[in-house]
């Protein structure tokens, strides 16, 4: 009897130690065993980290991290959280890089990726050709450097599109003329704004309006990093964009207050209040709006379509998203970092779970087809189709200035301070002054 008691107690103790050890393998401060021989630092945004404000995201990440820790007992990960706004976070990474203490694994906004590419390690050896070809085209292109090396792992993306009231509009407009015509009809019949978009001071303004330029075949910056948006046909395309925006405002389809819309989500209030018939928004707004309006009501009223362009045969949109970069040169650490990212975010399973819980779009095409969460989702087919014409913002240092000048020029045109031609001239002069100073 005494023997049985001792064995039972011993087993209970062993079991509880086991559970404790397992739980202890993943905390927000550490993943893996203290004694592990390979140690990695990993910097992520709060919403992508184990110190996550959302419990469901944290649970998914902790499950993935536990799987990783069990499969890789020789690896220990020290998480860091990048705080502040996105530019501040990227700035912090750049400063850490200059000081020689950048984390081994860092989360990098795809928009900033070109600045980081020469600071990141090539990852070619870890990806098969099949895997690379499975990625959406802009992600595949964006991950490579000029020599064709994979320098980052693009694991989530987002896309801009036209949202329209399907209960009021039978067929979504295909081009600018149609959009103005449809918006006028809806505005007259329903006492609401016809068409809203970002035109304030913020990156959303650039990313939501540049697709008009790209669809015409416009090029902002050439291969050498020199702005060319005012050269040759590009000038005409840019003037067309400003003329269209002016037409929208002059025709009453779009109110002047769009110059105070700095984020795509600023339009959510108008959507929820039944005050707008069409707008340019991001894919993440589907979930935001469905949660606020009620999924049933949102699905009943709203649908998405490609952004209408100057003519019906053209299509373009803007895409963004997040990437992971590896900075350590040590081959063992690099391989461990790659296994970690695969398990958590970039491998098919990791990406599927993460994008599902986070409400992001995967960058692997196969995920859309192979997993019912995506293949059965009525929005995904359309989003995937819109995304095929995705354009990435040019990753040259001058782009941020160009973006600011575009926002200022757009507001000048809407406010009537400048004609479209004058706005393009002013934008060009300011960008080129900056470019010449930089070179």
């Amino acid at each position: 009897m005494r023997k049985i008691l001792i064995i039972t107690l011993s087993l209970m103790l062993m079991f509880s130690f086991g559970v404790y050890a397992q739980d202890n393998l993943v905390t927000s401060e550490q993943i893996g065993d203290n004694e592990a021989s390979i140690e990695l630092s990993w910097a992520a945004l709060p919403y992508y980290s184990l110190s996550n404000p959302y419990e469901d995201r944290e649970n998914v990440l902790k499950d993935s991290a536990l799987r990783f820790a069990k499969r890789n007992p020789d690896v220990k990960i020290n998480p860091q959280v990048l705080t502040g706004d996105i530019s501040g976070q990227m700035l912090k990474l750049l400063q850490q890089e200059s000081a020689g203490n950048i984390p081994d694994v860092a989360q990098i906004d795809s928009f900033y990726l070109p600045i980081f590419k020469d600071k990141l390690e090539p990852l070619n050896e870890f990806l098969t050709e099949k895997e690379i070809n499975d990625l959406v085209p802009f992600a595949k292109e964006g991950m490579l450097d000029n020599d064709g090396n994979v320098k980052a792992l693009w694991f989530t993306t987002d896309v801009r599109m036209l949202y329209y009231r399907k209960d009021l509009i039978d067929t979504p407009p295909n081009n600018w003329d149609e959009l103005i015509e449809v918006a006028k009809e809806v505005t007259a019949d329903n006492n609401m704004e016809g068409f809203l978009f970002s035109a304030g001071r913020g990156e959303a303004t650039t990313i939501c309006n540049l697709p008009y330029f790209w669809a015409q075949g416009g090029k902002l910056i050439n291969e050498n990093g020199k702005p060319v948006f005012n050269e040759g046909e590009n000038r005409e395309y840019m003037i067309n964009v400003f003329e269209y925006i002016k037409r929208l405002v002059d025709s009453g389809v779009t109110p002047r207050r769009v110059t105070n819309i700095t984020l795509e989500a600023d339009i959510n209030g108008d959507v929820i209040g039944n005050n707008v018939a069409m707008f340019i928004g991001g894919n993440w707004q589907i979930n935001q709006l469905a949660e606020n309006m009620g999924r049933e009501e949102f699905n009943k009223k709203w649908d998405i379509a490609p952004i209408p362009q100057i003519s019906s045969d053209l299509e373009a949109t803007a895409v963004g998203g997040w990437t992971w970069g590896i900075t350590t040169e040590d081959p063992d650490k690099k391989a461990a970092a790659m296994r970690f990212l695969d398990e958590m975010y970039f491998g098919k399973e990791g990406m599927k779970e993460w994008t599902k819980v986070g409400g992001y779009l995967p960058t692997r095409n196969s995920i859309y087809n192979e997993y019912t969460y995506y293949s059965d989702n009525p929005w995904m087919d359309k989003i995937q189709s819109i995304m095929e014409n995705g354009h990435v913002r040019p990753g040259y240092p001058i782009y941020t200035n160009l973006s600011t000048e575009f926002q200022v020029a757009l507001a000048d045109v809407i406010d009537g301070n400048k004609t479209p031609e004058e706005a393009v001239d002013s934008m060009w002069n300011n960008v080129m002054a900056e470019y010449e100073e930089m070179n």
Partner: protein
Amino acid sequence: MLILFYLFPIVEVFRYSLTDIRLDKEIYSYGISAYQYVLSNPNFWEMLKITIIFVFASMFLQLFFGLIIATLIDEGERRNLKGTLVVRLIVLMAWVIPGVIIGVIWNLFLSEANYGILNYFIQLLFNTKISFLSSQDLALYSVIIANVWRGTAFSMIILYGGLKQISEELYEAASIDGASTLDKFFKITIPQLKPVIFINMVLITIYTFNTFDMIMALTGGGPGRSTEVISLNIYNTVFGHLELGRGSVLAVILFFINLSITLFYYNFVISEE
């Protein structure tokens, strides 16, 4: 040690201002090209004009309303009126709210969207809307109003403290001499408050020059460049365009503006005393 702690960052800003350093490049050189670029850029002078309008309009209005509220509270206390403490607390609430939240609150208040509170009433009464935030002509005034709302409490507290220092006997003597309320205000209150008013002016001015969080949330500096003040431009230059050298030049200019205002205070108030 303390001197080093405070001086080092300032010296670094001056050093960076004499370089062409960018945050995405490790190599940089020394020179005055950043100064030349900033000072020859017409957008800089436009931004300086906007900043000066924003700062001095905010300063005068905060001082004006702060003085009125402080005087009313002081007078209320003299007459033993109830509720003066509550008024002080309510006004102070505006001061303790973070700038970003104030930006959001005023955006909700002034917006032309269907949730814009002020425009809702304007539409009810006059069947029109006013482009408080989306007109390049009006946006700056809207930002000034929001900043005055935020800063008046600080001004009120400083002036209220000053009012409490004025001897009651001065007012009693003036009453015996037959002075009216206005006479007492202009011939006793204002002269006695003069040093406090000047301190207040300097503090408000420096504080407003450095304001950018509220503007960022309210207009983001737009429409166009119509509300882009120098401190917001420094943020955009360094964090948005990664131009640390040029951002440092703007910071140095802001530093000298603030220093000049402080010297002005010393020359015109301390030396007079």
